[in-house]
């Protein structure tokens, strides 16, 4: 199996074009620029030390804890009773709560449980005079992050608060980065969709003018000229398919259609009809086992199965190309398999085949843009599952993907 000489060139060309487009859009599209700037702001931003709520009834202890934490730069609020603490947490989110287990009105465990109920992300550190495994376990079960024994060693306390504060900050950072990443991905999809659309418009005109030339002016050209024109037409058509694939990729996961119950047995029948020309031409067969009905966006699941089944028939030199589709219901998910008796994939290509525009064969051998599996992978991930492959060159490949049953 060899990479074609033209595939990397096409990819390079596209990357280059995209580079130019990206630079242009980066300057023009304010929203893109803003989002990039925001990301840098977050990276540079020092995350403030978290606010701490101290729930402690002992006056002296109360003051000592408050002073020592304020000296360390923490902003502190205090409550002497459990109910007072709950009233405060209802009004303000405290990332860290330092709670004495013994309080005059309600128990520290109750405060802890209610605080965690109001704000599950709060890190609670328990102070206990009656340290025992049981109280420790009880506190941890109720959601405490850590516990400290009385008499409180201030050095230990500061260390625990520092560690807790770091955990909180890491959690916040993770949340922010995840949000940013989601936004950046969404914007990248919008960007891809927009430029694909804009690239399609001139291509549409080019194709039309070529058709006019071929139909009305073919006689004015000699054979070589007509040959060149034909090559231009083919290149334009290939470019059109590449753009279509990019568009499809950018649209995966968007809620264009409503979630509906899809009987996958019916869906496979439909796919077999769609692929009937290919199946007939190759003398092949598509065999589907018993499949479930799932709640999903039909268009994407259909695309996923169509691409995988189509590949199984396409990359196949058997006398009778056969693709078997199966499903196993496991504890938490459905595991789908699409197994073929095709040419198989060498180990070293098992990961790279999922890359966009990755092709292992020349277009004269197997047609295609190399976007199909990248689209499949994105769809599988949008369905909260994964897509992977096992293969033996010369024997065939089995593609696996799973969908968590809770998403069905």
């Amino acid at each position: 199996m060899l990479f074609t000489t033209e595939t990397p060139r096409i990819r390079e060309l596209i990357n280059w074009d995209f580079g130019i487009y990206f630079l242009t859009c980066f300057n023009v599209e304010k929203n893109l620029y803003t989002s990039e700037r925001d990301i840098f702001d977050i990276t540079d931003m020092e995350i403030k030390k978290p606010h701490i709520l101290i729930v402690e009834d002992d006056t002296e202890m109360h003051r000592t804890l408050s002073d020592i934490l304020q000296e360390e730069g923490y902003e502190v609020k205090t409550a002497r009773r459990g109910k007072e603490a709950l009233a405060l947490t209802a009004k303000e989110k405290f990332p860290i709560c330092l709670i004495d287990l013994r309080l005059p009105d309600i128990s520290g465990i109750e405060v802890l449980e209610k605080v965690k109920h109001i704000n599950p992300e709060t890190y609670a550190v328990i102070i206990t005079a009656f340290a025992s495994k049981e109280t420790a376990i009880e506190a941890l079960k109720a959601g405490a992050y850590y516990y400290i024994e009385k008499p409180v060693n201030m050095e230990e306390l500061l260390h625990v608060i520092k560690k807790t504060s770091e955990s909180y900050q890491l959690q916040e950072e993770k949340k922010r980065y995840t949000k940013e990443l989601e936004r950046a991905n969404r914007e990248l999809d919008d960007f891809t969709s927009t430029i694909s659309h804009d690239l399609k418009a001139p291509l549409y005109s080019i194709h039309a003018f070529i058709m006019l030339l071929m139909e009305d002016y073919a006689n004015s050209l000699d054979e070589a000229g007509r040959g060149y024109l034909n090559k231009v037409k083919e290149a334009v058509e290939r470019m059109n398919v590449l753009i279509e694939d990019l568009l499809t990729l950018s649209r995966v996961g968007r809620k264009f259609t409503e979630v509906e119950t899809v009987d996958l047995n019916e869906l496979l029948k439909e796919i077999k009809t769609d692929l009937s020309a290919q199946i007939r031409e190759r003398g092949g067969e598509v065999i589907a086992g018993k499949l479930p009905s799932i709640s999903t966006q039909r268009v994407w699941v259909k695309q996923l199965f169509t691409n995988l089944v189509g590949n199984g028939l396409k990359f196949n030199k058997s006398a009778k190309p056969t693709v078997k589709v199966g499903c196993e219901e496991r504890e938490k998910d459905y595991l789908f398999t699409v197994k073929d008796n095709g040419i198989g994939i060498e180990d070293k290509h098992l990961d790279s085949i999922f890359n966009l525009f990755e092709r292992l064969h020349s277009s004269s051998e197997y047609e295609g843009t190399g976007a199909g599996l990248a689209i499949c992978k994105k769809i599988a991930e949008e369905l909260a599952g994964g897509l992977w492959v096992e293969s033996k060159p010369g024997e065939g490949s089995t593609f696996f993907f799973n969908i968590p049953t809770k998403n069905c």
Partner: protein
Amino acid sequence: MFKVDKMEYNILLVDDEEFIHELLPLFLARNTKHTFSVHSALNGKEGVEMYSKLASEGHKPDLVLVDLRMPVMDGVEATRRIIEHDSTANIHLFTALAETPVEIDALKAGAKGTLYKLTDWDKTVQGIINILELE
């Protein structure tokens, strides 16, 4: 089946791709059944103005083909404004992309359907004739 006599149709094409304005009359002219007069607007705003002008001169377009993504005013807004002016306007979207949210918005705004920009112009021309003959 019904028979439609040779007709002269007025089409308003609203599209920012300038070459389309040259191409559509060329391909329509290959159809000898009917004759077509194609009016051009390069964005939604021009489209709305052109529609009013044609309608006031007694040449109300038999079909308005509206692209979706255009500068100055997009196809959704243009559709909304033309429908505001004339709720009977025969607007069809003319787009390369199927089932995008903007297409759905434009259909809600009053467009009667979508004609997809297919690379096969014979099909596009046939699509236009079907729309016009069904009216």
